[in-house]
């Protein structure tokens, strides 16, 4: 079962070179948004006007999604979507990387950086990643009746972080934006909100520089 954040992780890497397509901040924000997206898809939360609300829990098939849901329910007084996105973005990379390892979809690689080492997670299955990209490209171009909400949400998050310029490289930018926007506009409001807030978070990262 490929969950939303797993899908985002694969899209965020080039399916041939495995080079990461996003800035570290963009990757983390996108993964955090995808983790919140999983909660929406599992009907663990609802979302509107920048705030989220936890819904009654049920046992989820995935430990990471379960733990994110538990965290959200543990602090019901914190409702700001942007705050949760910021919080989840801190550990999202490692958490999703580990989950991909458990599914044999990635492997950990220790890289030496200046004066320290860091763990990166690298996808392993080229066909899998390429197939996901193709499927996304097809669904974005498809008519409303054929679209799956999780795929459209994934496309929306990919577009918000700038990934569609790789996935839909052959489509001219205005048409690309138009297609994704149209598909996202057909989503339920809470999923649309999440895409909007991801977009805002990516933009604010540009406007709020930390030297």
């Amino acid at each position, binding site marked *: *079962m*490929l*969950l*939303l954040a797993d899908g985002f992780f694969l899209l965020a890497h080039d399916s041939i070179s495995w080079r990461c*397509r*996003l*800035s570290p901040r*963009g990757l983390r924000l996108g993964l955090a948004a995808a983790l919140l997206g*999983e909660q*929406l*898809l*599992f*009907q663990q939360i*609802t*979302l*509107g*006007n*920048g*705030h*989220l*609300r936890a*819904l009654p829990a049920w046992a989820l*098939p995935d430990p990471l999604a379960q733990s994110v849901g538990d*965290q959200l329910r*543990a*602090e019901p007084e*914190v*409702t700001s979507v942007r*705050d*949760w996105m*910021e*919080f989840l973005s801190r550990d999202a990379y490692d958490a999703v990387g580990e989950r991909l390892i458990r599914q044999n979809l990635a492997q950990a690689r220790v890289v030496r950086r200046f004066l320290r080492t860091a763990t990166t997670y690298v996808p392993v299955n080229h066909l899998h990643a390429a197939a996901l990209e193709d499927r996304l490209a097809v669904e974005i171009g498809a008519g409303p009746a054929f679209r799956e*909400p*999780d795929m459209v949400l994934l496309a929306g998050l990919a577009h918000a972080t*700038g990934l569609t*310029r*790789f996935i839909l490289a052959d489509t001219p930018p*205005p048409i690309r*934006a138009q297609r994704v926007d149209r598909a996202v506009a057909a989503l*339920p*409001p*809470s999923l*649309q*909100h999440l*895409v*909007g*807030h991801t*977009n*805002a*978070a*990516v*933009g*604010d*990262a*540009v*406007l*709020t*520089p*930390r*030297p």
Partner: protein
Amino acid sequence: MSTTLAEARLGVPSVTFFVISAATPLTVVAGVVTTGYAVTGITGLPLGFLIIGAVLALFCMGYVAMARDVANAGAFSAYIARGIGRPIGVAGAWVAVAAYNALQVGLYGVIGAAATPLLAVWLSLQLPWWAVALVAWLLVAVLGLLHVDLNSRVLAVLLVAEVAIILLYSLANLTHPATGTVRFDGLDPTTLATPGLGAVLALAVLGFVGFESTVVYSEEARDPQRTIRIASFITVAVITALYTMSSWAMTVATGPDQIITQSQTHSAELIFHLAGQHLGPTLVDLGRVLFVTSVLAAMISFHNTTARYIFALGRERVLPEILGHTSPRTGAPQLGSLLQTAVGLAVILLYATAGWDPVAHLFFWGGTAGGVGVLLLITTTAIAIVRHLARTPTTKTTWRFLAAPVLAATALILVLVLALTNLPTLLGVPPDSPVPWLIPCAYLTFAALGALWALVLYHRRPTAYRSIGLGAKSAALRSGGPVPDHSDFQWDRPPS
């Protein structure tokens, strides 16, 4: 979660540091102050810094108070859109893009003057100013596209070194008064009772540009009000103290009656010329190196500010959406950066082929034109603050929410009027020259076109019109709606 986020929030020292580190004080002291004396011929500049420092401190009260209601808190135009109206907000944004561009491009005029003495001594290279400017331009273009805001440690080292060298030079100036005794003429209020008062005040504003970015960190600060307010005051106070003291110390070392002729002879070299007399060549070379790095840091900083203004307009879809795209890999506001880079190249080539003077007519005119633009923005923002806070019901102190903003707005209007009437003095041109007319006319044109464009949006693209001033958050607005009680989402298939 709340504790983790709280720990990561910024305190007063971090915010103050982020903002002051972008102030690049040596660019102002070695470049603006010396050429300012030379061009305006007025000795009251130190006092100008004091007055503007006080006015801006007053301005910060209302500015920080309003910041919480402004989505794109770093942009003056967002305050104007919120407080006065969206068309004036777009007008402000276009003026801002023009003003910050002028400030950035102006710096290409001084980098040659800053670097050529070093290149001549160390590498025996005699380069024309535009060659140096083109190298700097390339550096800014590349760093802008890579979205490099200079690393905070690099900036910290540069800032501390710059402040240290300014203090050292000033100390040397004060201990070697030309007339034998330290004279306070530079701080004498009567020196301001000249027709050029507005010019001095406009120049002083130029020294403070950048102080406005404290509010950018509102959302990340421990207390969005208190932290940012204190950080703003400290920033303004430190800048005021540093510039007042160093510009006054220069008049002491040359003698108050000689500062004008000396700065006209030496231009941006004056501060190093004085240091050379008292401190010896090593400290002079160190100061020159820091002047170069300071100008480079200022260029990068203004480049990024301009690119961000353009980016925010693209994000709001006030300008074509493509301007709001980031580079996925670097997070850079790509097109905004490229546009600014293009303007820079065009201006360098224009000045190089026309053979115009880079320091007096590019650096100083660009800087003062930009400074006047920013003064125009601050003044309009001050009016917007008064309007906004007056109609916001509050239980807070009337001083912070009413008296201080009204006083600040009144003072700023006065400063702006004085600056506009003294433009010939500010630019150092005869009163009948057409140049002083060009600057306000250019801004007026930009403002009019911006307001007109906003009205077009109102009729043609109402969603974009409602986004004006929201910056990146306009994306969230386009999908607004209350939190539903139940999942608005029925899906029988488990997500896969």
